[in-house]
């Protein structure tokens, strides 16, 4: 199902949780709603579900305005962080409950629940109570319960946050597998950028109730629209150098300057942040005035390459350096920048040049 939000707004008294939020999502995709804690992800999700009334704006499902539709008429499945299973019912009881409400005949209910259990690899757990399940198994049940009535849209609010790291990895692949198999349009809320990057077709990145960027994960990483997007994605985090744009060079407050490809886009003399991914530095053999002469502070071995913690013009940063270069702490390293993974953001607005 195609989901579209137009100018979606939600205020809780003085708190502006979601502001003028507009985005159109594609059918059959897994879309991550990503952003730091408290940025309004759950609020958006709950408005899509019909749990929260909107303050302003509209929601369209397949072109139909559903803004005022009650939750039960929206054809959605919901999964919460804390699973929200009915503790007094067995797994089978939990999965069949949505069908029971829709007065589906009993054998049909059981047939569909069993089919669901099969898809989730948990046929053996059907007569257990939620308490007798691990966190991962409980989340599987919750997903099965949300999917059993064939929703048009599956909404998951931080479904993996309560799981430990290993299980989280396993479950996110599981969710991806099921999503691909069922082809149900899925919106997955998370604050974990790695999680979002690894499983989604598209990412909606939010901050303080505002949409920051809607794009494919790789695009978000390669072409961030603003400072926040660049900062939020990537591990290690992107390196930021404050300074001004000069004549083809980047000039730092200390007066240190170096050649910077692409800086011609920035008006001369403008205060900017130069943001450089750690993989976008190139080590040079020889010193040259157009290179950064960075001091190597420490090194971490990462197998085929090394992560160097460096200092230049009063700013610390991280860079991947090929192993063969053989650098040592305390030495000076001459670096130039690649064109890819280097961005210029306005120091005041954060907008990209």
């Amino acid at each position: 199902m195609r989901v579209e939000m137009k100018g979606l707004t939600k205020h809780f008294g003085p708190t502006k949780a979601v502001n003028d939020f507009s985005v159109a999502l594609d059918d059959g995709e897994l879309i991550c709603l990503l952003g730091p804690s408290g940025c309004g992800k759950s609020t958006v999700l709950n408005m899509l579900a019909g749990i929260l009334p909107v303050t302003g704006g509209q929601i369209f499902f397949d072109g139909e305005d559903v803004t005022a539709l009650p939750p039960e008429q929206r054809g959605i499945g919901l999964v919460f962080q804390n699973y929200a299973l009915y503790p007094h019912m067995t797994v089978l009881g939990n999965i069949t409950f949505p069908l029971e409400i829709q007065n589906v005949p009993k054998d049909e209910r059981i047939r569909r629940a069993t089919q669901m259990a099969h898809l989730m690899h948990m046929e053996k757990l059907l007569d257990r109570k939620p308490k007798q399940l691990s966190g991962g198994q409980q989340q599987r049940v919750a997903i099965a319960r949300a999917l059993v009535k064939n929703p048009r849209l599956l909404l998951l609010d931080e479904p993996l946050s309560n799981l430990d790291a290993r299980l989280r990895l396993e479950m996110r692949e599981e969710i991806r597998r099921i999503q691909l198999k069922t082809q149900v349009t899925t919106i997955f809320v998370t604050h974990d950028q790695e999680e979002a990057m690894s499983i989604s077709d598209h990412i909606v990145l939010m901050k303080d109730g505002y949409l920051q960027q809607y794009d494919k994960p790789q695009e978000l990483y390669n072409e961030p629209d603003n400072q926040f997007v660049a900062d939020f994605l990537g591990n290690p985090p992107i390196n930021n150098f404050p300074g001004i744009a000069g004549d083809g060079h980047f000039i730092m407050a200390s007066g240190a300057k170096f050649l910077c490809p692409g800086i011609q886009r920035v008006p001369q003399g403008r205060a900017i942040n130069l943001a450089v991914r750690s993989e976008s530095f190139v080590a040079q053999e020889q010193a040259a005035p157009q290179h950064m002469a960075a001091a190597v502070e420490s090194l971490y071995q990462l197998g085929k390459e090394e992560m160097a913690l460096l200092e230049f013009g009063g700013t610390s940063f991280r860079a991947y350096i090929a192993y063969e270069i053989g650098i040592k702490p305390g030495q000076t390293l001459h670096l130039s920048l690649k064109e890819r993974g280097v961005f210029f953001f306005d120091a005041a607005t954060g907008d990209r040049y």
Partner: protein
Amino acid sequence: MDKRGKKIAGTMLYVPGVLLMVLGIIYLPITASMSLAVAAALGGAAMTAAGLYLNHSHKTKTLTARTVRYVLLSLGAVIMMFPFYWMLSSAFKTSAEMNLFPPSMAPNNWFDYGNFVVAFETAPFARYFMNSVIVVLSSVVITAFTTILGAFAFSRLKFPGKEILFSLLLSMMMVPFEILVITNYQTIVKIGLSDTLYALVLPFISSIFYTYILRNFFSSIPDGLYWSARVDGCTNWRYLWKIMVPIGRPALMTIILLNAMASWNSFMWPLLVIKRDTNRTLPFGLYSFTTEVGANNELLMAASSVVVMPMILLFFLARKQIVNGVARGGIKG
């Protein structure tokens, strides 16, 4: 003496010492020769102390601590249970035995149920019993129903004035029952229900306190359950009975039990509104029985034994829930 010898001697003193002490304390209220029991208890204590001094291993210490704890608890239990024992044993005594001095601890014949027969012939206890059952069942069932609805409304629904209404109700809890009795009485008389069983039920078909308890329990059920169900098309009504009530069963059971006990023992209200003999409930009936049988305490005890039996049975059947409920609510049963 070497260490090992000391240990063995200590144990040999300790074990009979504890036994003697416990037996002495237990027999203290029952035995004829009180001095012997005291001597046994004191001697046992001395032997225990000496044994402990000789054999002060960790194991003996924890064992002693546990023994002391259990002895104290047993003592408490004996003190608490003695009135019941006294009531029950008196119910089997003859009038002559009742008037013995010093009183006898046990009846001559534990199988002489003559007092029960006389008591039941003197007053219509079967009728009282029926009345009690009717009143308790009605008020418990209706209270449970209104409590569930109220608790749901205050925990889940959104409506204007909810907070104000709830604080108003809570503040009503501060008003003691004795004050409400007057207005309740006037109401009952005015609508012409005085001296009927309805009068015994009507003021007790809802409870702010139980509603408050259940509301708190309902509030602790995560929102996610509600919204998952709602999104699936579940109505509030269905959600309440299919999800909330089953989950809240422990709290609900506690409420029902506490309510049943309070209702069964209710005395002052029936005394006020009931005049006719046939409309009396058990506690009230028992009270009038005292005046009717005069000084025949053995008959009174026989009747009392019967009256408390259902509640004692109920307690043993639902002991865990009552204890939990009292612990949770911090209320007297």
